[in-house]
């Protein structure tokens, strides 16, 4: 059992990393009171831009950087429309997702089906430890950066003045405005951070997790990341746990197939989506609990008058 459990944990972390990256970005968005349903689109664009940039530059970090910039560009456009022009956040996010799906398919045509050489990574010294070496210390550097990002988000939100202001903007934009904070600028920064994270998450999919480009490869992970913020009741630490759990659900289906479980691959592939629904049902059942934790202005635009 031990010999198979450690790789399983490692694979779950690998599969959970893009979910966590995206969900952390979306968490910051939502803490400021903006919901961006364009996560899926930003991830798709991040995946294809990251892939193309890596193919042409030969460097994975350049790919990640390009994807982060692309994500921020899209998020900036989203911010312009919703925060500054006051369009409906839900509809604008959907438009972003559809636009991203179309544009990524278009850009990705020359790369369709091609793949990158997958690298092997390990932390020297720690990788030889029994069990935990395989389970935890053979990830791509980006996976560790994602964990670090989670810690940084926790510190930012709960231990810094800027984080407090961000949360205040999300809870009561009118009060924050009255105190002299630029609600719309703060929301724009939050959205840019969200775009950066979603771009990185998409690039992680196409550069590390698979590593290839095929159209629509994000396959709903942007939406699962959105569900994760609710699942985590808007707490970054719970986002981390949730993302790895969802990664585990994805991996366990591959594992079961490998073990020769007589079930069709299509039915097994439903697992993450069904798990998302089940988790949402469990968490949403108690309406008061959601209300207590959700940023009070989530989804509502603010216009200083």
């Amino acid at each position, binding site marked *: 059992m031990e010999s198979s459990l450690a790789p399983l944990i490692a694979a779950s972390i690998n599969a959970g990393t893009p979910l966590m990256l995206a969900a952390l970005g979306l968490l910051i968005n939502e803490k400021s009171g903006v919901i961006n*349903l364009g996560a899926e*689109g930003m991830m798709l664009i991040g995946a294809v831009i990251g892939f193309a940039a890596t193919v042409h530059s030969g460097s994975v970090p350049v790919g990640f950087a390009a994807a982060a910039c692309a994500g921020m560009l899209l998020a900036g456009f989203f911010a312009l*429309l919703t925060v500054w*022009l*006051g*369009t*409906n956040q*839900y*509809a*604008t996010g*959907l*438009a*972003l997702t*559809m*636009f*991203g*799906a*179309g*544009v990524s*398919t*278009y850009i990705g*045509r020359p790369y369709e089906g091609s793949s990158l050489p997958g690298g092997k990574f390990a932390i020297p010294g720690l990788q030889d430890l029994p069990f935990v070496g395989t389970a935890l210390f053979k990830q791509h550097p980006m996976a560790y950066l994602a964990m670090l990002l989670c810690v940084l988000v926790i510190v930012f939100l709960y231990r810094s003045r800027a984080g407090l202001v961000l949360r205040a903007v999300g809870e009561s934009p009118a009060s924050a405005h009255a105190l002299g904070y630029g609600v719309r600028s703060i929301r724009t920064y939050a959205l840019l951070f969200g775009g950066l994270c979603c771009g990185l998450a998409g690039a992680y999919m196409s550069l590390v997790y698979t590593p290839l480009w095929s*159209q629509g490869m994000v*396959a*709903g992970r942007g*939406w*699962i990341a*959105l*569900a994760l913020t*609710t699942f985590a009741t808007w707490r970054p630490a719970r986002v981390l746990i949730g993302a790895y759990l969802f990664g585990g659900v994805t991996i366990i289906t591959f594992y079961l197939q490998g073990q020769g479980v007589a079930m*069709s691959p*299509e*039915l097994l*592939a*439903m697992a993450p*989506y*069904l798990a*998302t*629904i089940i988790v*949402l*049902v469990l968490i*949403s*059942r108690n*309406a008061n609990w*959601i209300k207590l934790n959700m940023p009070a202005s989530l989804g509502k635009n603010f216009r200083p008058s």
Partner: protein
Amino acid sequence: MLKLEVRTSPSVAMSWLAPVFAVLLTVACGALLFLFLGKSPIAGLAAFFWEPISNLQGWTEVGVKVAPLLLIAVGLAICFRANVFNIGAEGQLVLGAIAGSWVALHLNESSQGGALMIALSLGAGMLGGMLWAAITALLRDRFNTNEILVSLMLVYVAQLLLSYLVHGILMDPEGANFPQSKLLDDGFLLPILVSGTRLHLGIVLAALASGLAWLFLSRSFSGFKLQVGGMAPLAARYAGFSSRKSLWTSMMICGALAGLAGVCEVLGPIGQLTPSVSPGYGFAAIIVAYVGRLHPIGVVFSSFIMALFYIGGELAQSRLGLPNAITGVFQGMLLFALLACDVLIHYRIRRSK
């Protein structure tokens, strides 16, 4: 410098002009896009907006695409008016296609088809779509679960289910292991309206749905209650209108129409169940619904525009050598353009001194 100034009251004229502006803006952006891609903008725009409607054959093909888009958009318009954010119509379409073709394939074993058999298959498709929509409605109703995420997750589940079935029990045993069902007999296919083309009965059903939905929303009490619940939930509660009822009504109507769209695709242009029964009609219909101002008659015009985008994408591929993914780019641009133009309903542009 120009600046935005709040209007004292929302402009009614602008709310109807915004979709027109949005289409024009999309066309302009499209021309720039073609220029940027090194293609002639005139040839590009002609492929999208002139060639599809330059002859009768083209018009009938537009009609083939309008049918599913209009059916779904009418359902979505009702949902969105009730403030029910059902964005998983694609899944409801897929389930309609599965249920309808399952029944049709089953009946096809002992029957040659005919009006009754077609009606049974269409009914099954509608039930399939309603069943799928009912999951979302039930979870929202009983457990307060976000319908956006649930309906979307169910799209992926529906597509995987479809793939499972056409690789398994619905696969044509004599089909050389291709993942698709048997071809249905001609007696099961929807009647063709213009001989020699693919234009089928679906467009009539869609027009009927649009008319009935207009009657429902503007002339019936339950349609009124549903819209009050969407626009002013507190007022609706004060008046004693049940929000649960409008959730269920709107979801069931939308599920039935999306399911009907799915089964019409199978009994219409495709003739069998395949894994790619819909090129994203369920998502495109969201844009159609918004561009049509969530009005059951307005969506007739916007579904026409969207159908042009679909055919234009195919033509751009054959005429200009552009991948037909350009359709998706146009779809996204149209919704962005609409949202941007909608700003003019509440604001006007003034020159600031």
